[in-house]
């Protein structure tokens, strides 16, 4: 297996630590009109260089929380600010630009089934609307190798295993050197070794100044991470956001 480090891939940008990329302020959310709130009165600042885990039982609202963080959903009450702009009122093009700086690993991956794996990983580069540079092409190759998908690069997404899909989704989330990485169960289908490699990558990206938020059930994964990085662990309980203590 080829050893490539994240810092090798993204040595270009210097972190501006502390800059708040995503901010939730007293956010409440419920699907549909008049239905119960799934999330209520949640506040969180994702600053550059921060590392968060988000846990909670299945159906607690982790995915919903992340959707609020990249503007797919808008809160019923409170404000979500993406790169300083309110997600409910920002222009559609500004939202697109903000999303180009947010790398998301979706729980259901969200691939385009008519494009092969490599093209799916390169999608954030394509949609920038400009020519892909030689450096970006090299990054793409390295990243495909790094997530161990070189032999599957020309396969179509429906032909991938669950773990392969998640690895490809992680590669797509970071291909464009985002400021924030939001990962929804990135290790749900991968083995422990691969999970640890993903963790090392996330930690390294975090050291380069990126804000990282990982939603996961996997407590062992969180424990392993806490040995490498100063991560805060958040928990959604009864629609409230809590800071988990040492009971983990």
């Amino acid at each position, binding site marked *: 297996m080829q050893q490539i480090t994240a810092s090798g891939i993204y040595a270009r940008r210097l972190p501006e630590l502390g800059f708040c990329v995503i901010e939730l302020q007293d956010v409440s959310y419920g699907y549909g009109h008049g239905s119960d709130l799934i999330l209520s009165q949640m506040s969180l600042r994702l600053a550059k260089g921060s590392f968060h885990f988000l846990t909670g039982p299945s159906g607690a609202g982790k995915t919903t929380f992340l959707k609020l963080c*990249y*503007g*797919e*959903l*808008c809160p019923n009450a409170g404000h979500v600010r993406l790169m300083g702009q309110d997600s409910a009122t920002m222009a*559609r*093009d500004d939202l*697109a*630009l*903000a*999303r*180009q*700086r*947010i790398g*998301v690993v*979706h729980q259901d991956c*969200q*691939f*385009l089934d*008519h*494009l092969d794996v490599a*093209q799916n990983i390169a*999608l*954030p580069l*394509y*949609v*920038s*609307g400009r*020519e*892909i540079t030689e450096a970006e092409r090299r990054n793409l190759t390295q990243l495909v190798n790094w997530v161990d998908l070189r032999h599957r690069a020309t396969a179509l997404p429906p032909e991938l295993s669950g773990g392969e899909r998640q690895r490809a989704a992680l590669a*797509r989330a970071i291909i*464009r050197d985002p400021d924030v990485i939001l990962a929804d169960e990135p290790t749900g289908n991968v083995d422990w070794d691969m999970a640890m490699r993903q963790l090392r990558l996330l930690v390294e990206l975090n050291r380069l100044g990126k804000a990282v938020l990982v939603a996961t059930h996997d407590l062992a994964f969180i424990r392993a991470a806490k040995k490498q990085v100063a991560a805060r662990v958040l928990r959604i309980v009864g629609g409230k956001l809590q800071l988990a203590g040492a009971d983990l």
Partner: protein
Amino acid sequence: MSFLVNIIAALIGDAASDRVVPSAGTSARLTVFASAAMAFLAVFALALSLAAGRVAARWSEDLARNSTIRIAAPMAEIEAEVATVLTVLAQTPGVVSAREVSMEEQRALLEPWFGAGMPIEFLPLPRIIDVTESPEGYDVEGLRLRLSAEAPNAILDDHETWRSALIAAAGRLRVMGYVALALIFGATVAMVTLAAQAALSANVQVIRVLRLVGARDAYIAGAFVRRFALRSLIGGGIGTFSGGVAILLFPDQASAESFVVGLGFVGAEWLWLLIIPLLIAFVAFQATKAAAFRVLRGMP
């Protein structure tokens, strides 16, 4: 001509953005066909309008400078009346020349109806005097009054009734041609919109993913717009070419005075054929763009 620049820029685009949207399949092929059919029809509607306009112009010019006087009198008086009429005409201001239509010319005029060799000398035919007016014309009512006094069997026909009816008909026909053109373009808008909407709704999930990875609306719309505008341009080109060939193959136009046979393009009018496919593509471009932005507005 800024729409030309728009279309050209949109057609060039970048190959990658075309790949991110799956090929539109049937709806794209139907767009080529529908655009070709519409362009073909547009060529005919345009030819109709232009020909009707030409006919109206010719009638109002030619006939305006010409009138006839018909004298149907008993044989005994006819020579005297012809002479009187010619004298009166010679004294009328606004008449450039007056000339009796000879028996030979009358024979030529009647030949299509009676066949050659008809002894028309023995028919009680009226005598016809051909009057050429100056551009300002003469006083029609004055001449009519004078003739009724001096040559009661002479009837002045200044073609006014005919002319105004024919010009009105040609004008109406031209308007109908333009209305047909407008309807054709309206139908093109409707068809392209339906095809684009079908393609867009088949790709809602693709559009959603593209939004999620940070594609701007213009980028996503562009991929669809390019596709449909290009198909319409190709279809429009094929249809216009076929329409142009069909018009060229119409029976000989130079000798034909009649309107139907005069259907066709003259000189610079052929340049319209270059514009029809571009207009069709432009209409498709706008229709797809509108449809795409409607769909996109409903997505986060």
